[in-house]
């Protein structure tokens, strides 16, 4: 049985080891904020943090994650995500909203690494997250806004 830390709680996973982390989170742990979009690491809707770094949970078999520390949109509460969520609200970023958990998880990891990202930084960090509603103009603006408002 695989043991993980999920949002700070120790979890013993019952799913088969080949089950992608995404489906362990959603079906077993009932953490549904992390979304299924493609299943092949092409869209980023399933992005979580694994040991502090963004990771596509749809292609991460849980059997390979023994002892890993997983944080999902439900559990992330650092200054980066708080600033981003405020900025998302100010600019009303989401349309259908389905990809936004993944967008925010990736953006939070970006701000943790580069607190004042340039447009080029945003492009390279966020290019793996698809938004079919194409809210990209607002995602970009909101990341800049969050960077401005985030406490040092």
């Amino acid at each position: 049985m695989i043991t993980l830390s999920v949002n700070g709680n120790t979890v013993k996973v019952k799913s088969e080891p080949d089950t992608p982390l995404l489906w362990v989170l959603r079906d077993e742990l009932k953490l549904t904020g992390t979304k299924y979009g493609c299943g092949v690491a092409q869209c980023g809707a399933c992005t979580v943090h694994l040991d502090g770094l963004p990771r596509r949970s749809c292609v991460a078999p849980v059997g390979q994650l023994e002892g890993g520390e997983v944080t999902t949109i439900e559990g992330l509460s650092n200054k980066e995500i708080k600033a981003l969520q405020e900025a998302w609200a100010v600019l009303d970023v989401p349309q259908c909203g389905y990809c936004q958990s993944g967008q925010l998880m990736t953006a939070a990891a970006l701000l943790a690494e580069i607190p004042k990202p340039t447009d080029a930084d945003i492009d390279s960090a966020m290019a793996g997250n698809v938004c079919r509603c194409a809210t990209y103009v607002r995602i970009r603006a909101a990341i800049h806004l969050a960077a401005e408002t985030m406490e040092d």
Partner: protein
Amino acid sequence: MRFVNHLSDSLNGLVSRRGFMRGLGGLGAGLVISVKLGAAADAQRSGAAAVMQSDNAAETIDATGFVVIGDDDTVTVMIKHLEMGQGPYTGLCTLVAEELDADWAQMRAQGAPSNAALYKNLAFGMQGTGGSTAMANSYEQMRKAGATARAMLVAAAAQNWGVPESEITVVKGLVSHNKSGEHARFAELADQAAKLTPPQNVKLKDPSRFTLIGTTVPKLDTRAKSDGSAIYTIDVDPPEMLTVVIAHPPRFGAKAAKVDDSVARKVRGVTDVKVTPHGVAVYADGFWAAKKARDALKIEWDDSGAEMRGTDQLIAEYRKQAEQPGKKATERGTVESALSRAIKMLQAEYIFPYLAHAPMEPLDCAIEARNGACQAWFGSQLQTVDHKTIAKVMGLPEEKVKINTLFAGGSFGRRAQPAGDLAGEAAAALKALDRDAAIKLVWTREDDMRGGRYRPFTLHRMKAALDKGGNIISWDHVVVSQSIVKGSPFEAMIKDGIDPTMVEGADDLPYKMRNLRVTAHTMEVGVPVLWWRSVGHTHTAFATETFLDELLVGGRKDPLHGRIALLKDQPRYAGVLQAVGRAARWNGSKAGKDRARGVAVHKSFDTYVAQIAEVSRGPDGLPKVEKVWCAVDCGVAVNPEIIRAQMEGGIGFGLGAILFDEITLDQGRVTQGNFNDYRMLRIHEMPKVEVVIVKSMEKPTGVGEPGVPPIGPAVANAWRALTGKAVRRLPFTQQPKAVAKSKVRTT
């Protein structure tokens, strides 16, 4: 009707056990203002409405149950339209709040259950969302609902306080009588107000008194969509629910002939495998087990009724058909007679691929059978069709069926299914179990990509002539495509043998042209098709606006001013062109050494949009779109930021499609399967966008779709200005193969 009963029913349902109806948490014993509205004289009518209205229901709009006042002083508006990102939760709440004089902070939105009598789209005569009609058909209805509720609250206050109604004011949710110093919140008056007879003809505010309409109120669904708490169909998880993944036939129209499920059944978590009319369904305790087992099925497919043709063959057959005389969609003057005066001619063939909608949330539907009743939870877009379909498949009377409409993770037309495909497939999978159960049908991305219901593959042939002065003296336009509505409940839309969705945007060409003909051919192909964000306008705007652009330039006219000159009788088209020209400081197509600009204008769903795209040469020989200026005239701008966001999104959605996307067939099999070979536009490919909203007091029209049609031709026109290459086949990635040198031929 006591609407509160309705609500408590749904609160007893599966979904509420997960406690996700947060917005209704405070409803409790909350009272309902039942509003009965008179006939909506302005209700939009369409061919669809005429078919779907078997009774005279549209004459009297029985709009009880739109406004629910909770004992916590929240005002919940039951939203009859699917929220798929285009903003009706916020937009329709704004209309109610405006007339109710509510405080925006007290407003809540809730998806209305399926109930055609209460919640029909006034443009369709059935419950459903599409054609960018949500705001247009609700504008008066929702304002009346708010005004009626306000009148009842004021009447209750007047009774309580023994003062004339005329002396009572309502400001930001506070009902006051200044002389006596009395005041009350809505919740304090709701009990009493609910006992009053709703007034029949409430007066609506003069637009000069609007305080919310025309302002950017914060969207109601942003927070839940930024912290993972918003519930979509895929998140619905009632106890003991099984996940179902279905093996669909690899060719459209094929059937399962022989199934070996021995390996599939051994996958841990799998409970059942059933052959259904839609394929082979695997039932398991979670998605992964169901998918793993589905992929382990060995199925022999019977292709005897299947579509076996490939894309190249379809192109050849469409071309052959285009040579034949088509059915006339419109004709002015005589195209042939003008040709004798022609100095120059231009002919072009355009090819538009099948396109998948590819919403971020693949299709899914949760459905439960308990004690002879059935309830479904999903992003239903044509609730009335889905409701009837479920009842039919389950063999239940319609009153034993209920649909709870949830947020949809995008749709772009995909969930508006005239044949109730998805609801029927889920119901059939539930029915196959032959017991009380709850299932959630989940399509994989590949199922979605290969599942059909595409924007129709379409071919256009165009021919035009210029006179000595460079004026267009004839315009002959042939469209070869598949019908979307044929065989559906919307079939009565077909006029003179032509499905209007094939020629919309072409047969109403706004430019002044004496000799014009548009003809159409309907092809029979076994690939199911559907409306795809802006429907026929996706290809007609491209064909007409790129062709016109070549003619203008060939006749030595400026693309922007040349258009405006042909639109003297079309002030709203000309208005958006002038506005976008000002915003972009248009000074011709050239924009420095390595950049060029293109313009396009198109009306769809009664909204006018003009765009100017500035492009440079990007990697892989494709255009890089640097910036897009966009002017939109959608009548009264109810929420300017939602309008801007829809224009931005429409531009990105349309741009990705014209650059990268096509669904192709190889001997009937779809070649593409996921986002690796059906590319989505990504953030680094998104242009800067500047949106100008043209001030208008016309009735509001939709914004969900109209941002899409102009972007393709605007980019193609810019590309032609930059490279001299006309784009005649989409997507742009086809250009190395199919590029045509733009040349207006001298006759």
